């Protein structure tokens, strides 16, 4: 076997990062669910023969970060190394061996080169439906949340398992979309595999041992250098959010040691009776993501760079749910993990992390069915949308308006959503005044207003939080606005759970703002005037919260009439 120089390994590492990116792009282009193709709720990675993750696509969402790194060893163990054959493709949607809920399918493809197993490709995507009660918080156990596919073969030595396909088709509401998505997952691994083999030929590699060692050693050393440079110590963070049955408190004790950072979630709330519980793998993903953003943002994710971020939690708590706890909306708790971790990290590393933000995505799923007046051929349709509130203000810059943090997904275009089902989105725009006040203002949330096309009615499965627990400011910053939800006739609705919407009614939602950072009295005059001109804040807030005088307010109002920017 050829000896490879440092320069050659540098080139190969670059190549693998490009390979997984291309793998992810292929998934976006071939997927059927809007959650994958428009929102990018997916991930893709390449592994060595031991199942250690070498590179992960930056396209995708942080929730899959560690879950993906941990998944392949589960597949190797379940399938049995000796039973892995060329042409096989495996899949699962097991929440505990995949990425935390049944709606994520993970597909793993072994890579063979010259007849030998050299590595694996894995990818994950969020599909729109897996049967059961439908995507939502209402399940009392994982059994109610949909069909469960343990780790098994999707393709057996080149042949797709027709029995599995038939079972899946018979158990879900959108069988064409699901099967299409599974093919897309298999395709994306296949594309990664082809490119890997091209690279191995070019560099005359028989296995990935050399490049794997190079990547992992350099990543490990770089991560440890970052950790070693931090002040040692411990701090506690805590945050309470709505939950479903009762409010949930997340607690973390963060300890920075010389060679690792431990996030210990002991003392967090127990399990919720409904499906917002979070398997540990997903809690870990967001704890690790939060720390990496703050400490080592440019170090790519792989087995070695993730290893020093350790996690502990008590079993059967909200952050470490075990089978058969319901977990469909585990993202709600998961998305609050970074704000909890930052509450602790802020004490150890001041002036680095943002104030609290909207946290969890503001998602809802509409289950539409034809009414008696429906046109011929009308059928039931599931439409899922992803939306974002405002992010928390940062130490030196405002929070981002209607932008996901910590999640990495995109929203779906309104026009694409209306093509996906008989839905009308009447409003989707920024929510003035919802950003927490401060020297740096919290990001604005957004308004949405939705209904069904005539001839349809629907249930809305709400997945919102921060109705009673808005984002809290940091260093004197104000809280963000809370979530609100009601029918257009004023009937209040709940932040979570499946709720029937009468025909012809619309649902009015206001998604939360991010919190502010620092005292509002320290905010630059020019920024207050700019915010007023743009309608991010009201004249009343400019006067009361920020102390803008009447003459300045009048001046801004004149500028608006004159079509001037500030």
């Amino acid at each position, binding site marked *: 076997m050829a000896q490879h120089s440092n320069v050659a390994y540098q080139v190969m590492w670059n190549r693998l990062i490009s390979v997984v990116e291309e793998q992810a792009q292929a998934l976006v282009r071939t997927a059927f669910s809007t959650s994958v193709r428009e929102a990018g709720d997916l991930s893709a990675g390449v592994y060595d023969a031991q199942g250690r993750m070498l590179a992960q696509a930056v396209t995708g969402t942080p929730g899959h970060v560690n879950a993906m790194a941990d998944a392949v060893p589960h597949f190797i163990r379940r399938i049995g190394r000796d039973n892995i054959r060329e042409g096989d493709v495996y899949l699962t949607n097991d929440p505990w061996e995949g990425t935390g809920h049944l709606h994520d399918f993970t597909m793993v493809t072994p890579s063979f080169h010259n007849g030998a197993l050299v590595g694996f490709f894995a990818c994950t995507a969020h599909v729109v439906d897996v049967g059961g009660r439908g995507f939502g918080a209402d399940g009392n156990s994982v059994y109610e949340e949909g069909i469960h596919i343990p780790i098994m073969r999707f393709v057996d030595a080149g042949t797709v398992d027709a029995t599995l396909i038939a079972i899946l088709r018979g158990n879900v509401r959108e069988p064409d979309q699901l099967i299409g998505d599974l093919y897309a997952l298999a395709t994306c691994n296949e594309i990664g595999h082809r490119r890997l083999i091209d690279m191995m030929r070019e560099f005359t590699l028989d296995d990935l041992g050399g490049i794997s060692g190079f990547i992992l050693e350099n990543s490990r050393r770089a991560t440890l250098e970052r950790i070693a440079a931090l002040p040692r110590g411990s701090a506690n963070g805590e945050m309470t959010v709505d939950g479903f049955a009762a409010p949930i408190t997340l607690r973390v004790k963060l300890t920075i040691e010389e060679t690792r950072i431990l996030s210990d979630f002991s003392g967090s709330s127990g399990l919720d009776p409904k499906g917002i519980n979070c398997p540990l793998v997903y809690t870990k993903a967001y704890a690790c993501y939060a720390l990496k953003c703050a400490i080592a943002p440019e170090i790519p994710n792989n087995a070695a760079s993730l290893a020093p971020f350790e996690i502990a939690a008590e079993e059967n708590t909200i952050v470490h749910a075990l089978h058969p706890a319901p977990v469909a909306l585990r993202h709600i708790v998961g998305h609050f993990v970074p704000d909890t971790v930052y509450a602790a990290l802020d004490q150890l590393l001041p002036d680095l992390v943002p104030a609290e933000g909207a946290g969890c995505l503001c998602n809802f799923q509409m289950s539409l069915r034809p009414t008696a007046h429906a046109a011929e051929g009308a059928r039931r349709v599931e439409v899922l949308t992803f939306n974002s509130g405002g992010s928390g203000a940062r130490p030196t810059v405002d929070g981002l308006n209607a932008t996901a943090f910590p999640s990495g997904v995109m929203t779906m275009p309104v026009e*694409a959503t209306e093509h996906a089902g008989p839905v009308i989105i009447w409003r989707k725009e920024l929510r003035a005044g919802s950003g927490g006040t401060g020297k740096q203002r919290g990001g604005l949330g957004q308004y949405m207003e939705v209904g069904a096309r005539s001839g349809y009615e629907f249930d809305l499965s709400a997945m919102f939080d921060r109705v009673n627990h808005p984002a809290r400011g940091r260093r004197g910053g104000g809280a963000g606005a809370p979530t609100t939800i009601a029918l257009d006739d004023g009937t209040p609705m709940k932040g979570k759970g499946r709720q029937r919407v009468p025909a012809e009614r619309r649902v009015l939602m206001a998604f939360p703002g991010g919190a502010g950072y620092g005292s509002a009295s320290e905010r630059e005059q020019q920024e207050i005037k700019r915010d007023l001109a743009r309608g991010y804040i009201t004249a009343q807030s400019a006067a009361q919260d920020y102390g803008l005088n009447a003459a300045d307010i009048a001046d801004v109002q004149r500028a608006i009439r004159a*079509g001037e920017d500030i």
Partner: protein
Amino acid sequence: MASPSIRLGVDIGGTFTDVVLESGDDRYSTKVLTTYAAPENAIIDGMHQVCTKAGIAAADIGQIIHGTTLATNALIERRGAKTALITTEGFRDVIEMRTESRFEQYDLNLQLPAPLLPRQMRFTVPGRMDATGAELVPLTRTDIEPVVDTIARAGFESVAVGLIHSYLNDAHERLVRDVLRDRMPNVMISLSSEVSPQMREYERFNTVVANAYIKPLMKSYLDRLRGRLHDEDVRCPVFLMHSGGGIISIESAAEFPVRLVESGPAGGAVFAAHIAARYGLDKVLSFDMGGTTAKICLIRDQTPKTSRVFEVARTYRFKKGSGMPISIPVIDMVEIGAGGGSLGSVDAMRQIRVGPESAGSEPGPACYGRGGIRPAVTDADLVLGKLDPDNFAGGTIPLDPAASETALTNEIGDTLEMDATTAAFGLAEVVDENMANAARVHAVENGEDLGGYTMIAFGGAAPLHAGRLCEKLGVNRLLVPPGAGVGSAIGFLRAPFSFEANRSVYMTLAGFDPARIVTLLTELREEAQGFVRTCAPDAPILSEFKVYMRYKGQGWEIPIILTEAQAMAPDAVVFDRLFNEDYTRLFGRPVAGLDVEITVWSVNATTEPDSVAQVREAAPGAPATSHTSRSLFDPARQEFAEAQVVLRNRMKTGQTVNGPAALTEDETTIILPTSRRAIRQPDGCIDITAKD
């Protein structure tokens, strides 16, 4: 007296305005500094220079083809007009909310690019179409008038109109235009249903806003240009290069200036396509590398690949998502931050990184001796022997190899325990690999394998790196044309008159409606041909038909080319077969049992390209003479070898050179790796192939 055989190509770039005059078979070119305040001045200046060289009067010029980065720069620098947007109630913030995501997930202090228009310049009207194009809520003049009056009082010069689902039904947008015309007769108006009638509101609204934003500026510039040319007794027609690789009338350009974005790079692709035609090459990869970026484009059957959306004004390391999307027909190119000035460094993983940060021209690479202390790609090229320190830019800039070595050692070698040569090799390998990766990804996205491709390289830095790139990509043949420094302006002179009309109309194969398809495609053909006819009233016009198809439920379409017969006598079975063939080629296997859907319909009307004289390729003859040699690092062998140095303009047709070698000229140097040999072709191209 204007003569049709005398044509002028003008490319206004960021630094230089390139002017090329062709008179029969003769070509004269010059570069003058771009004059930002009044770009037409540089054109007039350059025009007189080439006319003097050619010994003709400016009045003799028969046609001017013009491309410019002015539109792009106005968007990047936010120097547009006072512009308002009128949009659907409930959707005021579409261009600000973007995709609601962060394009860089690990940067806690990320800032998103501001929308072109701040919120107080965005207005709403009621009225609503649904996803079938039916009217859900009516819109009346009474609804619109107060909004228009507010806009009028504020003194807006340009108004963009973008309403939800207007690509399916433009009635409301047209009504808004009527009211605007009645109450603001002098305002400029852009409708999203005309500028970019495609689904996805963020892209469409952003495109119509961009068009409105630069419209007054571009119209004023084009009027001034016409005036100045008139003053110089130049009365010939002036046409504009558009981003799709064709040319349109000055009037169309003033109406749809957003179509001028990226016209310069489009000219480069047309230049490469023309060379492909001369050599009868069906699979070409064009590679353009300058000081700060490299651009790569696939050219199939002598036609550059096109796309329907791209991103301008990326604000964050050329990162996808950090700019603004523009959905117009455009030549599909990947651009990455890799050029001669791109700087190298070592990151926390002890990996060498190159670009997108660039040394620019001041201070420039370390070897310029103007205070640059960080190593650029040019420094690596110098240490590896690819550049001659005494003959860079025709000897006008002496290079200092010791400064390069110091910079490489300090920034890279010390950290990685490498000597300066190995550091230079590492830096060059990383930048070449970055470009190769971009090319590979682009090829795979288009379902292409680069194996059978020929590369055509132009731009100052491309010939230094193209040979190695070919080795990495498994590309066997490389052509380096003459005149590569002004390739885009030459490309303008090769472009046909063309206009592409697109429309989003959803139709499944299960609901296939041949009569409706024929009507739709006929309308699109009329629209597209109308634009071409204003430029070339008598020329025969060809129409290219394309539909974008996907499995129903997917979000991304693949383009399917139809013959005129397939378009005008549509058959669902044929559409299905064409789609499945392409899908399988791209993604490996079709998906069984799903309906297929057509989403976008497109007709590109174009004049017939001039017949291209084929190059009679020379047989390999005697070796070219070489009087000197120098030590050149060969990356594939990872060692220095003695390389002959050949003056490119002394090479005669048929003469050959075996690698390792450096073929030098004033503007650049062609590096021939050990694995390659070169032959000079009759048209001056250096034709480089793998030895075996």
